[in-house]
């Protein structure tokens, strides 16, 4: 036994030493395959809504500029705003524009930079049924209020004639974290359902009447995928990438519209000309026959005063790149690129970053 102890201790200690050597090596040389100049690291955090395209952008940008690493963590719009206000990240991201109270808490002025347009879709997992359902807006509100509890409820059948829905319990799924996607969803529900507006309201974090909570768009999609009978709201790409069916929603003009590049663009088009200076706008329930009613811009939240000159320049360069080159990544990932007028206005706004 005594003989066993020494080799054992040696092995474990060696493992620890080895790990520490690797750690120091990686920290000393950044472990990049190529010896590089000083790598600048930025940290941003926030919305999960645009995470698929942001992760692509920041990865591509790093391929172009190997000395710039922008580390984006999708922790939810609420967290993005909070951490930006606390100064623990270099920039934030949110689908919900910051409200006046939050802007008031900031030490410097915060600029909203819309990046893409996206759609929030009702996605579901009904056993034995994967076709497209039609939802009236009131229907969605009632489901999320807990008033409609089974998939074969007559209210649902009313808009979906001839469709065979099982008598399965509806499992409502919402966000457990502070979410811009939640903000868009509840903003829409508040507009179309006075009961929802009075009882629950619109915010990144609300007191959900019923349902399970998932963390991030990812968590909601994950829960819906794994729970028979579930319905959840996610950004379009999450439903598409995970092959989850999603339904049509009736818009303000009374048409049942499917979320798509065209319908999202139509929702954004109307507001492009009248975009407010600070870009804070809600485009849910947008007018127009072809407009999808649950859409939103998603924003990068950039402080106007950035102390590190290097970081400031990188952010400005990135924004330029994003507004010009980055926009072509939107469509393949089912986001809608920004309307041209909005891009022009944003290019002007970049100058405000000192």
């Amino acid at each position: 036994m005594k003989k066993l102890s020494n080799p054992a201790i040696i092995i474990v200690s060696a493992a620890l030493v080895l790990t520490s050597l690797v750690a120091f090596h990686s920290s000393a040389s950044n472990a990049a395959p190529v010896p590089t100049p000083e790598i600048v690291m930025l940290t941003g955090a926030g919305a999960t809504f645009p995470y698929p395209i942001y992760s692509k952008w920041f990865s591509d940008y790093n391929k172009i500029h190997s000395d710039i690493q922008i580390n984006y963590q999708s922790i939810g719009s609420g967290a993005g705003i909070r951490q930006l206000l606390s100064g623990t990240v270099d920039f934030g991201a949110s689908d919900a524009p910051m409200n006046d109270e939050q802007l008031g808490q900031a030490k410097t002025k915060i600029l909203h930079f819309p990046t893409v347009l996206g759609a929030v879709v009702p996605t579901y997992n009904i056993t034995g049924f994967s076709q497209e359902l039609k939802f009236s807006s009131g229907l969605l509100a009632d489901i999320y209020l807990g008033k409609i509890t089974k998939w074969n409820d007559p209210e649902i059948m009313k808009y979906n004639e001839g469709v065979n829905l099982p008598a399965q319990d509806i499992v409502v799924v919402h966000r457990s974290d502070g979410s811009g996607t939640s903000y868009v969803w509840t903003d829409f529900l508040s507009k179309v359902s006075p009961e929802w507006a009075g009882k629950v309201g619109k915010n990144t974090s609300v007191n959900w009447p019923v349902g399970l909570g998932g963390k991030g768009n990812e968590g909601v999609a994950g829960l819906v995928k794994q729970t028979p009978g579930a319905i959840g709201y996610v950004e379009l790409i999450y439903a598409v990438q995970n092959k989850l069916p999603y339904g049509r929603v009736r818009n303000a003009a009374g048409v049942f519209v499917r979320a798509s590049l065209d319908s999202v663009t139509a929702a954004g088009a109307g507001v492009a000309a009248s975009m407010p200076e600070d870009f804070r706008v809600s485009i849910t329930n947008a007018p127009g026959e072809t407009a999808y009613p649950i859409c939103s811009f998603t924003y990068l939240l950039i402080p106007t005063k950035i102390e590190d000159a290097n970081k400031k320049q990188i952010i400005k360069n990135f924004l330029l790149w994003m507004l010009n080159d980055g926009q072509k990544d939107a469509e393949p990932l089912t986001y809608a690129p920004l309307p041209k007028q909005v891009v022009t206005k944003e290019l002007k706004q970049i100058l405000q970053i000192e």
Partner: protein
Amino acid sequence: MANNPGPTGRAAPNRRAPALIQGLRSGDTFAHLVTLLCAASVLLLTVALVYELYINSTTAQHKFGLGFLTGRTWDPVSGEFGALPFVYGTLVTSALALLVAVPLGVGAAIFLSELAPPRISNALTFVIELLAAVPSVIYGLLGIFITAPFLRQYGEPFLKRTLGFLPLFQGPMYGVGMLTAGFVLAIMVVPFVISLSREVLMAVPVEQREGALGLGATKWESTWQVVVPYARLGILASIFLALARALGETMAVTMVIGNDPKISSSLFAPGYSIAAVIANEFAEATADLHLQALIELGLVLFALTIVINGLARIVIISTTQKGSSQ
């Protein structure tokens, strides 16, 4: 300590007396001081922790007062925060975990200490104690992909069929929910119950067993009516240990509890625990009151932990005073 004169009070033979003794003494004093500070750091850290929790939740404390503990609503929009749903979820899942883990654990401990041959007992205990080393996120991983679907498809319908007259087992079955969380927690705390119970059972003097057997008891009767009662304080301590672990468990719980701050009578329903809501909402609470309410929840959890620890101590002390075991 510092003025410990040493066993003989005399200097060692080949040392010159006064100067060196001074040096030795101050080396001792220095060592005493350094180690004392390190030991005190434990106190310092705990005090700092409580202080930070307290000072960062004062606004919430003033606003809600004691009603915080009985408030049922958690509404960031209207700024109304109540701790009851989380306390409920924490306690229910922990109680469930104990309900499963204690019989299972004590039973296994009895087997390992009384029946199994020593080598097998040691080997099996070794394996079981490894369970305690499994990280919580892995329990969560298995919970999401195995336990929850299993319970949704087989476990919960079975309970509904057999015990469905109880409100505990009614309602829709999601898979994730308090039952799953309690079950996952049970697996996580069972090694603690087994390990500690087995130790105290094995520490029961052989005379106790032999005495019972000598009076004609079967081995089981000796075990159940003599050995186990003799060791009951240690077993109770293991239960408290398991409870404390279950109360504070975060990751595995938040991955399977459903994250819904509601109080339901059904175990199938989703719930929320204090640790889980802090993990989910802490990074993002933009309104100050929201953040403070979360930290106040942390304070409540901390208080719960202290109470459980305190109860464990009382159990041990009071039973020691009765003089029935050590």
